């Protein structure tokens, strides 16, 4: 790609210049977390060096400066996902907390015994367990959309699962284990046709594809900062204003209140109602800096380049003897899960690590999905825009070498 200068981009990421086990680092664990460009790291240092202060509290100069930076970050996020209002952007720890927030607040208000909640077979544990906990508490039931052998949601089965008892749908936009891109627009439309609200787990989508929450028309959307080149410990819950207004707060504490007496407390307006305690101020500013970095590169350019890596990787991995790629959806993000013959993913991962190649092995927090494929886990290589075809060649060589040793 001519307009996408990977070699120049790589220089923005200090960690990519380091070595592992005496070899240059090949980082293919981007679905777990992404590396940080220097501009994000510098933003964090600058914040703590020049701005650090608590937000929404002080009249003094630094508090004002920190508050402005924090609220400006919210606006950056709003713009990035095209939310209607910045009040619809809630800072949380990450996708997991965002989902737990919804199950605890929306769930406690609207989900009752025998109600049904729909998720899919592809979900990460963080979009399964909070719903199970809610079901245990309320007596509601979890319904799971089946998938086909390519790792795609079977839409007709989803249609069949919807009933008069369905109260909520929560699905991943993109599968973390397989890379499958779900037809979320269709999924949302169908839910809305039955007046059912829907949440998208966007943890694996935000860094790969353009997100426009108004165009998607999802009711809630969650993502983590660290998956999009930002810091850990910061994430976003987007929710439509009327829905967020209608549900009770999540945690109680400072900043989320209007007035407190021992008799009665009134809650603050959006978004503060959901942001009890001192928030991750540095994280939010770091996230905004990461989003700006991604915007400068252009998410469409990123998607195009990553797709070329996916195609190159898939084609070349498939040429290895006994290669089995798990997840062959027609629409895929740059994630390749695979197994070689009957070798255990742990063994392949261990040997690749010796070669300086970072992949993820195991069940990727998707035990039910691994069970569906009847496998002990996979080796997962997930690509980011700073990866190269040369690195994929190193992976291919590594996998060949490892499988020669193991088979």
């Amino acid at each position, binding site marked *: 790609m001519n307009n996408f200068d990977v070699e120049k981009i790589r220089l923005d990421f200090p960690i990519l210049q380091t070595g592992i*086990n005496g070899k240059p680092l090949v980082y293919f664990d981007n679905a777990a977390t992404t590396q940080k460009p220097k501009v994000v790291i510098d933003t964090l240092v600058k914040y703590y060096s020049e701005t650090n202060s608590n937000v929404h509290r002080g009249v003094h100069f630094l508090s004002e400066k920190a508050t402005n930076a924090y609220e400006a970050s919210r606006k950056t996020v709003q713009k990035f996902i095209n939310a209607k209002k910045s009040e619809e952007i809630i800072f949380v720890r990450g996708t997991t907390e965002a989902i737990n927030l919804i199950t605890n607040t929306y769930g406690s208000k609207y989900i009752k015994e025998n109600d049904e909640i729909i998720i899919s077979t592809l979900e990460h544990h963080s979009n399964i367990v909070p719903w199970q906990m809610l079901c245990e508490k309320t007596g509601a039931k979890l319904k799971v959309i089946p998938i086909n052998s390519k790792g795609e949601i079977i839409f007709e089965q989803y249609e069949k699962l919807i009933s008069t008892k369905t109260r909520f749908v929560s699905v991943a936009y993109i599968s973390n284990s397989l890379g499958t891109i779900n037809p979320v627009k269709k999924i949302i439309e169908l839910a809305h046709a039955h007046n059912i609200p829907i949440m998208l787990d966007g943890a694996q989508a935000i860094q790969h594809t353009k997100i426009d929450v108004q165009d998607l028309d999802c009711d809630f959307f969650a993502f983590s900062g660290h998956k999009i080149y930002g810091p850990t410990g910061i994430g976003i819950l987007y929710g439509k204003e009327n829905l967020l207004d209608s549900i009770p707060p999540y945690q109680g504490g400072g900043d989320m209140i209007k007035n407190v007496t021992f008799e009665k407390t009134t809650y603050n307006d959006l978004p503060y109602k959901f942001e009890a305690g001192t928030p991750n101020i540095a994280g939010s500013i770091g996230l905004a800096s990461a989003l700006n970095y991604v915007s400068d590169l252009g998410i469409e350019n990123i998607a195009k380049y990553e797709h070329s890596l996916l195609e190159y990787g898939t084609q070349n991995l498939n040429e290895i003897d006994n290669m089995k790629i798990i997840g062959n959806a027609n629409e895929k993000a740059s994630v390749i899960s695979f197994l070689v013959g009957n*070798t*255990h*993913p*742990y*063994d392949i*991962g*261990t*040997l690749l690590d*010796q070669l300086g190649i970072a992949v993820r*092995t*195991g*069940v990727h927090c998707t035990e039910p999905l691994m069970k569906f494929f009847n496998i*002990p*886990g996979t080796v997962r290589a997930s690509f980011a825009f700073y990866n190269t075809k040369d690195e994929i060649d190193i992976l291919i060589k590594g996998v060949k*070498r490892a499988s020669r*040793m*193991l088979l």
Partner: protein
Amino acid sequence: MEKTIEEIEDEIVDEFTVFEEWMDKYEYIIELGKNLPAMDEKYKTDNRKVSGCQSQVWLNTNFENGKVIYEADSDAIITKGLVGLLVRVLSNRKPQDIINAKLDFINKIGMKEHLSPNRANGLVSMIKHMKDDASSFLNKNNNQN
């Protein structure tokens, strides 16, 4: 005379010193894993499973003539090779010797990272189970005497 645990450990360390390349080392461990007899499927029950989320380890412990006999298996071959080394060092030993064993050889052969709890390969819990089994055997024996 029968070798002590430390002597077997030294023997393993010696075997590994010939390997200069990491690859040779791993090839040897893989070989050990392949050669370790598979555990009878009927023993691979949940109560014998010392699981990590990455690879599974099964440990079957028996007590014969005052000694602890271990048999172990894993679904990952590198883990299985390491498991085999532990069985070689600790099986057919007196419980007290097993409890006292420091198992420094794992560090000395450069396989320490496999004992990191993050690896979740079941090895850390396997060592704990081996020692726990030895302790419970010792306690049972002491109570009987």
